[in-house]
């Protein structure tokens, strides 16, 4: 044994893990009916992984909730069901299609229509229907400017809205989850992680990931400078048809198939990805076309309850 154990130092990944587990346990303890929002993306996968550690050897004391736009990459759903089975969690699915059928939302029209914005309504409806008072999300502060000031325990009013000016201060590791009836919280245990931390953790823990994260040849086209996968849910504009091609790509985030951009990449393993992330010159959300609508797009969506 080297002397290291005597100095009681732990590496930063262990510190982040320990902090996230603390937050997950606080959430279970402070709320009556928490839920973990599971998108099938790597951050929510890491969250569910940490939740399993936090409550081991007991099962997760909350379900995984997936808001399904219906416009998924097929791999996402296969992965989701396998993963849920592996960690023996309960899964609750909220369908955007259902919100559309019930007339709760209007589907965007035109070739650039996306269900991304509609998710918010389905999410809030699902939260209300099941009475979830805290939703755990995989959001990280390094993702986007508006998230740099997000709290671990983020208070939402009875309309699900986030008021950046009315957030509770968080000191030390004391979190105030007290609330009035009808209000709820979003909780972000990975707040202090960076994209690199998440990848290093996935590697260290050998967490299985959806194949979308790894490079493969796909049918793609270009829209507004973003590489999108050709799917049944997207109608290409005539000028976009000209950009249709086969390309070796991978995805850096996994969301709605209509607006999640791919990056040109040959990264086929976790190590390749880590190397790529280390050399990357674009932030992760740089590939999300929904953020490009305006400079403060993210802040606007968050105020309306977007995760």
């Amino acid at each position, binding site marked *: 044994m080297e002397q290291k*154990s005597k100095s*009681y*130092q*732990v*590496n*930063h*990944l*262990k510190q*982040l*893990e*320990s*902090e996230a*587990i*603390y937050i997950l*346990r*606080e959430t*279970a*303890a402070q709320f009556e009916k928490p839920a973990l929002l599971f998108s099938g993306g790597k951050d929510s996968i890491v969250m569910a992984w940490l939740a*399993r*550690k*936090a*409550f*081991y*050897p*007991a*099962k997760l004391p909350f379900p995984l909730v997936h808001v399904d736009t219906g416009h998924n990459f097929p791999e996402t759903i296969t992965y989701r069901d396998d993963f849920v089975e592996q960690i023996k969690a309960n899964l609750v699915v909220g369908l955007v299609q259902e919100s559309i059928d019930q007339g709760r939302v209007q589907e965007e029209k035109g070739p650039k229509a996306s269900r991304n914005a509609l998710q918010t309504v389905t999410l809030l409806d699902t939260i209300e229907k099941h009475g979830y008072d805290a939703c755990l999300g995989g959001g990280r*502060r*390094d993702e986007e*400017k*508006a998230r*740099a*000031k997000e709290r671990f325990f983020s208070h939402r009013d009875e309309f699900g809205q986030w008021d*950046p*000016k009315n*957030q*509770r*201060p*968080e*000191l*030390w*590791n*004391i979190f*105030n989850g*007290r*609330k*009035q009836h009808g209000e709820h919280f979003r909780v972000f245990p990975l*707040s*202090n992680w*960076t994209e*690199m931390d998440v990848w*290093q953790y996935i590697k*260290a823990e050998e967490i299985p990931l959806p194949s979308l994260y790894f490079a493969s040849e796909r049918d793609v086209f270009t829209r507004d400078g973003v590489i999108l996968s050709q799917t049944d849910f997207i109608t290409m504009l005539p000028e976009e048809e000209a950009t249709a091609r086969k390309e070796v790509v991978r995805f850096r985030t996994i969301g709605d198939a209509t607006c999640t951009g791919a990056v040109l990449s040959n990264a086929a393993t976790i190590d390749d990805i880590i190397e790529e992330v280390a050399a*990357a*010159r*674009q*932030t992760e959300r*740089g590939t999300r076309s929904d953020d490009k609508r305006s*400079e*403060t797009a993210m*802040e606007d969506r968050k105020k309306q309850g977007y995760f």
Partner: protein
Amino acid sequence: MSEERGYLDMDLLRFTTAGSVDDGKSTLIGRLLYDSKNIFEDQLEAVETSSKARGDEHVNLALLTDGLRAEREQGITIDVAYRYFATPKRKFIIADTPGHIQYTRNMVTGASTANLAIILIDARKGVIEQTCRHAFIASLLRIQHVVICVNKMDLVDWSQERYDEIIAEFKQFASRLDNVVEVTFIPISALEGDNVVDKSKNMDWYQGPTLMYHLENVYVGPDANHIDARFPVQWVIRPMSNEWHDFRGYAGRVAGGVFKPGDDVVVLPSGFTTKVKAIHTLEGEIEEAFNPLSVTMTLEDEIDISRGDMIAKPNNQPKVEQDVEAMICWFSEKKKLKGREKLILRHTTKEVKAIVKDVRYKVNINTLHKIEDDLEFGLNDIGRISLRTSSPLFFDSYSRNRQTGSFVLIDEFTNETVAAGMII
């Protein structure tokens, strides 16, 4: 540290910066990120575009750190923003806070999790009220390492004389700061990049480290308490499955000291003693647990334990009392503290009712003078109070343990966090 392990050997340094609009704090952070190549192309492009639109002469590195729209419009930072960057040696978390007196609560928040504070002094202005305030907050929140960056050296002709004068001024004041263990002075120009990441070519007379070198190498290991064993119980794990039929584990994050299987422990408030049976994690049982690890402990005897209880060692117990003396910082804009107020107090994993018994004094945080004639606490006021709680707290002094010595006060009607407290 061995080269091969790389990323897994990196440790974490949390630091805070306080500064106001014109002392170059945002520029300094922008400079740290930019010169250490922690800025992405699209972020830089966005900043270049905004700089041009505003008619700024240089690429305005300050724009990298100003997030919310209100701030972008007013050109000020109004909250605590957390930023992340890494070098091959360390990962850094910056709590970036505004510096004006009306944002004292933000500075206190940012300081609460930091191991190191950077305080900026404008070389032209020297030590001013704001410098003293920032240093006082760092000391109050027990930040043991303070770095004084004497900024804008380019505007005083890189003068060593001026720099020495400022150091002398600060040292005179710093003798009154209790908790600060180490003060480091560095002459810099955030705008030009001198001594931030790269060594200055304009100040040959300065032989010390650059800011980045210091951040990468400063030893912050002993900040955590590894002497007084404290384990606030956060959650009781009872799988109630066939495989784990009688398992009853206590989950929490070690707040101090070291726990090992076989250790004698005492459970508070009941006072029952037993031994640690095992320390569990998903990967298997471990030999010892210490701060900041989150673990699950099982005990040899069945004792009724719930969230908010604390496991400690029989020969080294925290104080178990209902009367608490503390320094507080008032956080609420709407509510004021006027004497015998009833509030909710949250300490470790415990929540109790508390009544303010006495307001001892307030502190003028610019001069450190006591204020005894106006005892009403409004937003940003700092001072000393005494509290009585509805049931005993298990605590240490804040100067001994940041986790078991800190609390927040909550308004029981609005649920707003109205104050942060440090137990004396």
